[in-house]
C-alpha cells in the first residue's frame, strides 16, 4: 500500500455528493428548468449535520444503528474500490466478495431500521427493497465472476488494473453484457428511475426513500452520504470495465473521474426520457440483468 492508493478513496469521499448534483442538473436541462445548484447535496449534508434528531418512542437501538452501520459499510466498501488503474487502499484476493457483502450489510441495516419504526409504509418499502435486492445481487455476483474469469484476477484492484483493449477485442460481447447488467444493477441499487423514483413524495410508490422517512438530522445526512458513496462505487465499477486505460497514470485517473460523471449524466438522461416501471414489472428487469450477466459468464467460459 502506498500514498497513491489513497487517491481513489479521497476522490470518492469528496466528489460523490457532486454526482447527485450532476444527475439533477441533467434532468433539469431536459425539463427546461434551471435546476438546483450543483453543490446542493453538500449544502443539504451540511444543513442536516447541524440539526438534532427526533426519535420515535417505538424505535430501539436498531433504528439509530442503521444509518451509522450503513455509513461504516459504505466507507469500508470505498476502501476496496480502485479507480482509473489506480489500485484501491485495500486489496486482497476475493475482496469483491467483501465489497458485495458490505453493500448487503448496508441494506440489511437500512431495512432493519425501517422495520423498527413499525410504520406500514416503511414495512412495505423494506419488503420491496429486500425482494428487489435478492434479484440484483445474483446479477452483481455473476457480473463480477465474469470479470474474474476474463482477467484471471481475484481482487477488484488487480482485476480492473488488468482490463485492457485486448480484453475488449477478444471478448467484447461478454464485457458489453457485463456493463449492461451492471448499469441495471446501478439503477436499481441507487433507487433511480426506472426502478424507483428518488424525487417522488408519494409514500405508497417509494422503495428506498420510504425506508428513511423517519430518519432526520445527522442520521439522514449519514444516509444521504452513504447513498452518494454507493452511487460513486457502482459508477466506478462500470467505469473500471469501460475504460481500458492509457499508459499515463494521471490521464487514467482524470479520464476515470470524467467517466464516473459521464455515468451520472447517463443516469440523468435515462430518468428524463422514460417513466418509472410499474412496480410488479421491476423484477423482470432485474432478472433480465441477471440473465445478461449469466450470458456474459457463459461467453467468458467459452472464449477463454
Amino acid at each position, binding site marked *: 500500500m502506498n500514498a497513491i492508493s489513497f487517491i481513489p478513496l479521497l476522490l470518492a469521499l469528496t466528489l460523490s455528493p457532486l454526482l447527485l448534483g450532476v444527475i439533477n442538473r441533467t434532468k433539469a436541462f*431536459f425539463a427546461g428548468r434551471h435546476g438546483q445548484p450543483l453543490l446542493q447535496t453538500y449544502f443539504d449534508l451540511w444543513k442536516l449535520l447541524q440539526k438534532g434528531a427526533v426519535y420515535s418512542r417505538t424505535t430501539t437501538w436498531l433504528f439509530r444503528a442503521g444509518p451509522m452501520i450503513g455509513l461504516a459499510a459504505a466507507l469500508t466498501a470505498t476502501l476496496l474500490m480502485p479507480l482509473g488503474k489506480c489500485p484501491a487502499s485495500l486489496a486482497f484476493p476475493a475482496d469483491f466478495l467483501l465489497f458485495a457483502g458490505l453493500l448487503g450489510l448496508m441494506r440489511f441495516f437500512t431495512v432493519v431500521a425501517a422495520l423498527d419504526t413499525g410504520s*406500514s409504509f416503511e414495512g*412495505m418499502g423494506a419488503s420491496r427493497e429486500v425482494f428487489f435486492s435478492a434479484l440484483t445481487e445474483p446479477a452483481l455476483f455473476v457480473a463480477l465472476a465474469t470479470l474474474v474469469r476474463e482477467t484471471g484476477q481475484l481482487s477488484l484492484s488487480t482485476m480492473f488494473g488488468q482490463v485492457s483493449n485486448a480484453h475488449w477485442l477478444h471478448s467484447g460481447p461478454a464485457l458489453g453484457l457485463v456493463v449492461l447488467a451492471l448499469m441495471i444493477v446501478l439503477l436499481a441499487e441507487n433507487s433511480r428511475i426506472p426502478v424507483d423514483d428518488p424525487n417522488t413524495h408519494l409514500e*405508497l410508490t417509494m422503495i428506498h426513500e420510504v425506508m428513511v422517512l423517519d430518519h432526520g438530522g445527522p442520521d439522514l445526512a449519514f444516509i444521504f452520504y452513504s447513498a452518494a458513496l454507493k452511487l460513486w462505487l457502482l459508477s466506478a465499477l462500470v467505469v473500471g470495465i469501460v475504460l481500458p486505460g492509457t499508459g499515463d497514470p494521471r490521464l487514467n485517473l482524470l479520464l476515470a473521474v470524467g467517466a464516473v460523471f459521464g455515468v451520472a449524466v447517463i443516469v440523468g438522461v435515462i430518468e428524463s426520457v422514460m417513466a*418509472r416501471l*410499474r*412496480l410488479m*414489472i421491476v423484477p423482470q428487469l432485474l432478472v433480465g440483468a441477471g440473465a445478461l450477466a449469466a450470458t456474459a459468464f457463459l461467453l467468458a467460459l467459452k472464449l477463454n
Partner: protein
Amino acid sequence: MKAAAPNALHNGEPVQLGDIPVPTITDFRERVLQACEGGSRIAALFGQPAADGNTRLFAVMASDVKGQLALWSAMVPDHYPALTPSCAQAQGFERELAEQWGVHPDGHPWLKPVRYHHSYREGHDAWGRSAKSPIQPGVTDFFAMGGDEVHEVAVGPVHAGIIEPGHFRFQCHGEQVYHLEIALGYQHRGVERALVGGPNKRTIPFMETLAGDTTVGHTLAYCEAVEALAGVDAPARAQALRAIALELERLANHTGDLGALADDVGYLPTASYCGRIRGDFLNLTALLCGNRFGRGLIRPGGALFDLEPARQSQMVERLAQARQDVTSAVELLWNSSSVRSRFENAGPVSRETALELGLVGLAARASGIERDVRAQFPSGLYRFAQIPVSSYHSGTVFARAYVRWMEIQRSLAFISDQLQALPHGPVRAEIGPLAPQHLVVSLTEGWRGEICHVATTDATGRFAHYKVVDPSFHNWMGLTLALRNQQISDFPLCNKSFNLSYCGHDL
C-alpha cells in the same frame, strides 16, 4: 311514459314548490327505483326540513337520453327503507341524509357519516348520538380483513404532498389492494347551511370557494339558478364570456392533471412543461377578469368584466401559443411507451360499474358513457354552440388521461370559435327579486363533471334551502372501486387520474 308529467323539468327551469307532487314514501321509492332502472341517474337526493318536524325528500333524476330532469318528492318520518340496496348510486346521498337530518335509511349496507357533524334536526340522530357528544372526523368503523398475511395501510389525513386532507385505508395482501375505504369530511365548513337566507353579500364568495379549482363552474351554476328564479336571462355576450371562462378553467385543470399524471410515473418533460402551460391558461383567465381562478368574473345577471378588442386579440394570440405548447408537451406523453405501459390497464372502472355508481364527468366518459351536461342539459351559450362529447371505452388511467386530452383540444377549438364571433351588447342585466316558493335545478359541466345546484326559496324569495352536489360526491366511490385488485403502488396514479375535490365533497 307520460309526455308532460308535472314533475318533469329542464336544467334551469323554475317550478313552484306547491306544484311538485308529494306521493307517499313507498311511491317515491318506487318511482326513483323505476327511473334508475330506466336509465336515469340520481343527480341529487336531499332532505329539507318540513313544518311538521318531518323531513321532505327531494330526488332529482337525470335522464341523459332525453336530456330531461325529473323531480320527485316525499315526506319521511325518522326512517324509511333505503334505496341503496337496489340502487347503489344512492349510497352517498342516503348517508348524507342520515347525517344531516337524522333520517335512518333502513337496510343501508354501510351507513357511515359523510362529513362528521351533528344532525341539523335537533334530537334526531341516525346513530343515536347526543347533541353534546363531540364528533371527530374520520373516527368511525372501517371495513377490515382478517388473516396473517393481510395488512392494513392507513394514509392521511395529513399527506406528504400539498393536497387536501382525506383518510385512506387500504386492505392489502402484499402489494395487492383488496379494498380501499375513504373517509372525508375534514374540510366541512357548513356551506349549505350558511347559504340559507341568501342571496346576500356572502353568497358569491362562498360559491367562488366551494372548490377552489372549480370557481367558474360553481359560480356559473349558482348564477344560472338565481337568474332562473328571477326570470332574467344573462345577455348573450355575458353568456359567451362565461362559457369561455368555463372552458379556460377546464383547460387549466386538464393540462395540470396531465402534467401531474406524468409526474406520478416519473416522466419529467411533460410534468414540467404542463405545469407551466397550466399557468398560461390560468393567466388567460386573469386576462379576462384579473384573477387567475376567475373570481370576480361571474355574477347573477351576467359578468363583471367585458373583453374589449385589444384584449380579445391578445387572448387569441396567447391561446394559439398555448395550444402549440400543450400539443407538443402532451404528445410526448403518448409517444413514450414507458408512460403508456403505466397508464394502460391501471385502475379500470367498467362501464357497468360506472353506470351503477352514477359516475359523472370525465370519469364517466372515460368508462365509455356519453354523459356531458354541455351536450345533454345545455344552458347558457351551450344551447347554441355545441361541444362534442369526448369519451373513451377502457375506463383506465389511460382513458381518463386521454379524455382530458380530447377535451383540451375541443375546448381550445370552442374558445377560438367564440372569440371570433363574440355577440355584441351589454354584459350584465339587472336582477330583480327571486320568485318566492320556487325550486330550481341548475346543472353545469365543470371540468370534473356535473355540478348540480338546487335552490328553493321561501315566501319572501330568500333561499329556504340550497343544495350543492359537486361531481366529486358521485365519483369518490369510483376511485374506491378502481383500486380493487390493483397494486397499492399505483394508488397515487389512479387517484390523480380522478383528481377529485375534497372541499367540494365536504362543503
